[in-house]
């Protein structure tokens, strides 16, 4: 073991004392500016500046960091503290399990794109342009997704084809893409660089086609396709250039077969296939919330109540000529009984439909009832335009829609005027929200939380490329407009190109590892992982190495310590605490994302705190085991402070709540065991709250 100590510009001069056998002490000026050769299995103590700075400089080391600069030099604590910290670090490191480097070869530099909407098409053409072979899997018989169902794209009012068709053209120009329509993913195995995706292609019915259209002419089945009428055999002008039979509605009367110039088969079978790929892009797009579940609005129950999509398709195909329309916003959104969240784009959609209809029918009366109008960016201009065109906006969520004298009536209170209103209308349009396509994520083994795939929809992290071979594009994870979908698609393509630029990816961050000799598969850990990285594979607990973020919560949860976080195993921490804490000391176990930084801040701001405060950096307040608190108390500690992020601000989602529960239970037990229960405190300390930290430890020191 090597101990690398920075002299901190001459301020640190360690005594010439022995640190034990096989421990070599080196003192360096400007440690951070030097390059060290560190062997992969070597353990090093790095004593210098704060680990927040130093850990980036020693990425491959199994290292224990001693914060000499911020914890000794700047607060003006004595050199003996430096020595104590170093000896304790050595004691810890002796028992530390090293951090392993994990290597994932990128075996297949091919990509599977699930979803053939605007995002999937854009990803595919961007990847194909980079020479990467792409297999696109689209569920419907034709590409285009939601965009192909629309008439126009607002705020500008561009016809949908102006955006979609060139995209399809771009994609088809490259011969590196294979497209499966009418196909669905049935299973996924493997990990980054090496996935196997099985898919099933449903029969299309039309095998050869001249696009004569006679089949549709003779087809007796009229289908209402989201507001627009078509036949059971039909064609969409996107891709492929072949008619398709909608077998859900087809009566198999055989009329089309008789007139077909090409070849139609009503008995075609589906095909199963397996495809290998190094990365998967999920571009499954929007899933509309089933607004019939908002029963008070009468969708499917009352004539004239329709969704925005149906309204747009019915108006633009000439089926509907409304005189008086009420749009109901947030139909089933931000609602504890339905979708808890705002779907972001439904306000835009509603505005668009209103514009579409006032453009067409100047005398139409339009009411929009909304709790809030969320018209961000350029949509504000559309909102302004519509007000000036005389559309009446009502603030408030209508209570119900009912029928009176053959008309629809919407009852609502208008918050602008505090008046209860009844609006009679011939058409009521429900602007509903969207959910992610959970089916695909389930097949990919991506865990969902609050309906959303965790990590992907972590607003502050953005698209985190996790699990590292699975990417998302467009509205698959959260509703996005066309522009956002395209940007997101390019970002996904860029991420894939970046990934494929390497032959393997290496990951050095500490992972949770499971000792199978100790693991009883008691499942306690599974649900505690904030990333869904833990699952049962072949009757054993399996930690997905690409998903683990090293918080250590599972390790502390494991009742057998079968799961341990590399570099943070309990035996090592226990010896660290026993070497560090003496009679009358205060042990501070501080989360590296918040409270620990407050101690650095204390150093910069010269906020004084007592020298007997012994600080240990932990990955999360939720990764503090009660045993370790007991260790400190047994050693004579006057108090133990656990410092974590504020509630709901935990870097690992709910780690600090776990810490809270531990603290509560622990305090009760300590009380019964004759300890002052206030000797253990869990405090929320923000990263800059140096003064809060100092005042807490001073109080505990009394």
């Amino acid at each position: 073991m090597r101990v690398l100590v920075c002299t901190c510009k001459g301020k640190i001069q360690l005594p010439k004392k022995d640190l034990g056998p096989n421990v070599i002490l080196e003192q360096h000026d400007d440690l951070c500016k030097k390059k060290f050769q560190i062997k992969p299995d070597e353990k090093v103590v790095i004593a210098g500046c704060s680990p927040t700075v130093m850990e980036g400089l020693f990425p491959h080391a199994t290292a224990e960091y001693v914060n000499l600069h911020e914890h000794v030099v700047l607060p003006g604590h004595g050199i003996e503290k430096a020595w104590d910290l170093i000896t304790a670090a050595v004691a810890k490191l002796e028992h530390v399990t090293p951090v392993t480097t994990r290597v994932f070869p990128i075996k297949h530099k091919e990509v599977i794109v699930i979803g053939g909407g605007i995002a999937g098409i854009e990803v595919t053409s961007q990847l194909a342009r980079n020479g990467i072979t792409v297999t696109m899997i689209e569920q419907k018989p034709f590409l285009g997704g939601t965009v192909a169902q629309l008439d126009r794209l607002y705020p500008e009012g561009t016809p949908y084809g102006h955006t979609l068709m060139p995209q399809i053209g771009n994609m088809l120009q490259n011969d590196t893409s294979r497209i499966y329509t009418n196909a669905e993913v049935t299973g996924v195995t493997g990990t980054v660089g090496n996935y196997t995706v099985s898919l099933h292609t449903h029969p299309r019915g039309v095998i050869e086609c001249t696009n004569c259209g006679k089949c549709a002419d003779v087809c007796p089945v009229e289908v209402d396709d989201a507001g627009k009428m078509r036949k059971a055999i039909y064609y969409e002008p996107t891709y492929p250039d072949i008619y398709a039979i909608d077998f859900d509605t087809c009566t198999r009367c055989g009329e089309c077969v008789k007139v077909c110039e090409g070849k139609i088969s009503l008995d075609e079978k589906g095909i199963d296939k397996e495809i290998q790929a190094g990365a998967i892009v999920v571009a499954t797009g929007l899933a509309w919330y089933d607004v019939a579940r908002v029963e008070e609005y009468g969708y499917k129950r009352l004539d004239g109540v329709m969704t925005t999509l149906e309204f747009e398709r019915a108006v633009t195909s000439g089926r509907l000529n409304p005189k008086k329309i009420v749009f109901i916003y947030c139909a089933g959104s931000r609602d504890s009984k339905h979708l808890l969240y705002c779907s972001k784009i439904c306000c835009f959609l509603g505005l668009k439909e209103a514009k579409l209809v006032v453009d067409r029918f100047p005398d139409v009366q339009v009411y929009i009832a909304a709790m809030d109008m969320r018209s961000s960016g350029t949509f504000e201009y559309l909102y302004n335009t519509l007000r000036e065109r005389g559309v009446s906006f009502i603030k408030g969520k209508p209570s119900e829609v009912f029928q009176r004298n053959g008309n629809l009536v919407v009852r609502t209170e208008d918050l602008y005027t505090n008046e209860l209103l009844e609006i009679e209308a011939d058409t009521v349009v429900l602007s509903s929200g969207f959910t992610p396509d959970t089916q695909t994520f389930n097949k990919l083994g991506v865990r969902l939380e609050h309906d959303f795939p965790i990590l992907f929809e972590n607003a502050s992290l953005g698209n985190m490329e996790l699990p590292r071979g699975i990417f998302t594009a467009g509205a698959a994870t959260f509703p996005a407009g066309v522009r956002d979908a395209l940007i997101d698609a390019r970002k996904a393509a860029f991420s894939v190109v970046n990934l494929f630029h390497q032959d393997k990816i290496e990951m050095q961050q500490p992972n949770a590892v499971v000792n199978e000799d100790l693991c009883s598969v008691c499942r306690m850990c599974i649900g505690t992982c904030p990333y869904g990285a833990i699952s049962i594979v072949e009757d054993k607990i399996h930690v997905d190495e690409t998903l683990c973020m090293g918080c250590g919560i599972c390790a502390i949860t494991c009742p057998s310590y079968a799961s341990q976080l590399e570099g943070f195993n309990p035996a090592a921490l226990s010896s660290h605490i026993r070497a560090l804490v003496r009679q009358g000391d205060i042990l501070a176990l501080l989360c590296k994302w918040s409270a620990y930084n407050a101690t650095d801040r204390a150093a910069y701001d010269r906020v004084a705190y007592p020298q007997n405060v012994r600080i240990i950096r932990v990955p999360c307040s939720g990764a503090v085991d009660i045993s370790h608190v007991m260790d400190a108390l047994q050693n004579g500690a006057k108090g133990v402070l656990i410092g974590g992020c504020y509630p709901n601000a935990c870097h690992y989602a709910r780690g600090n709540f776990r810490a809270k529960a531990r603290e509560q239970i622990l305090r009760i037990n300590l009380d019964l065991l004759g300890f002052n229960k206030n000797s253990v405190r869990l405090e929320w300390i923000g990263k800059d709250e140096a003064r809060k930290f100092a005042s807490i430890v001073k109080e505990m020191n009394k």
Partner: protein
Amino acid sequence: MAKPLVAFYWCASCGGCEEAVVDLAEDILKVVDAVDIRLWPVAMDFKRADVEAMEDKSIAVSFINGAVRTEEQEEMVKLLRKKSQLVIPFGACAHLGGIPGLANIANKKEIFETAYKLTRSTQNPKGIYPQTTTDTPYGKLTLPEFFDTVKTLDQTIEVDYYLPGCAPPPELIMQAVTAILEGKLPPKGSVLTVDKALCETCERNKSKPDTLAIKDIKRISHVIADPEKCFLAEGIICLGPATRGGCGERCINANMPCRGCFGPTKEVKDMGAKFLSSLASIIDVDDEKEIEKIAESVIDPIGLFYMYSLPSSILKRKQGV
């Protein structure tokens, strides 16, 4: 070849471990065939002097049950250590401190007061307590010192292996005896059962959901537990995940949750602390006040989480008394 000599001894315990030996039923004959029992106070009339007279290390193995709570017990186990090649704490009390170890939340004075004065069935208005020496017309009588703190066997003498359980199941005893006779012993310090927790073999583990989420803690005496379901999934505290297996799940099969008599698994020092850390992870409440409520809803947490292991825990006993 002479049969190996074996000793059984009984310290602070309920006597259940002695019963466990008897529970070997006809198997006990095999044992008696194979060994020569030289000390078994509960069943045979050997005296301390007989042991003292023996040569050091002449006993092949001493099985000692019960925790160490009196001066006499301390003397006897030290004596047996001297005379034995192997010493095996037999049962939870010797292994972890056991139920007598819960006395560590009090001291001698409090215990005497309760036992000799405060209990309803006691009449002791003068407050007379047992003394180590008493002068009588017939001479001085002595009693061994009653310690403040109950200790595990390994806190008193060095031990070689542990036979866990309250009481150790017969199968495990037979396995251990066989292993000793055949000389097929694991590394010193091992617990003579499996290394994995009870859940490994528990039938109910399959019913445990991936995400355990406890919103309130139920007492087994207040609910009728579903005999098919994992206790924890129902909000009933079961120490199974934190307890070594090999016991044959006798409690679980009787629809009672595990209370941890087999002690913690290999890497864990403090069973109660470890289980509390685990339990806190599955409490599915975010509100601080609610968390407090749940924590406080556990009646007698020391008796629940440290039922068998208080003397072997990190803190060992209540402080300041």
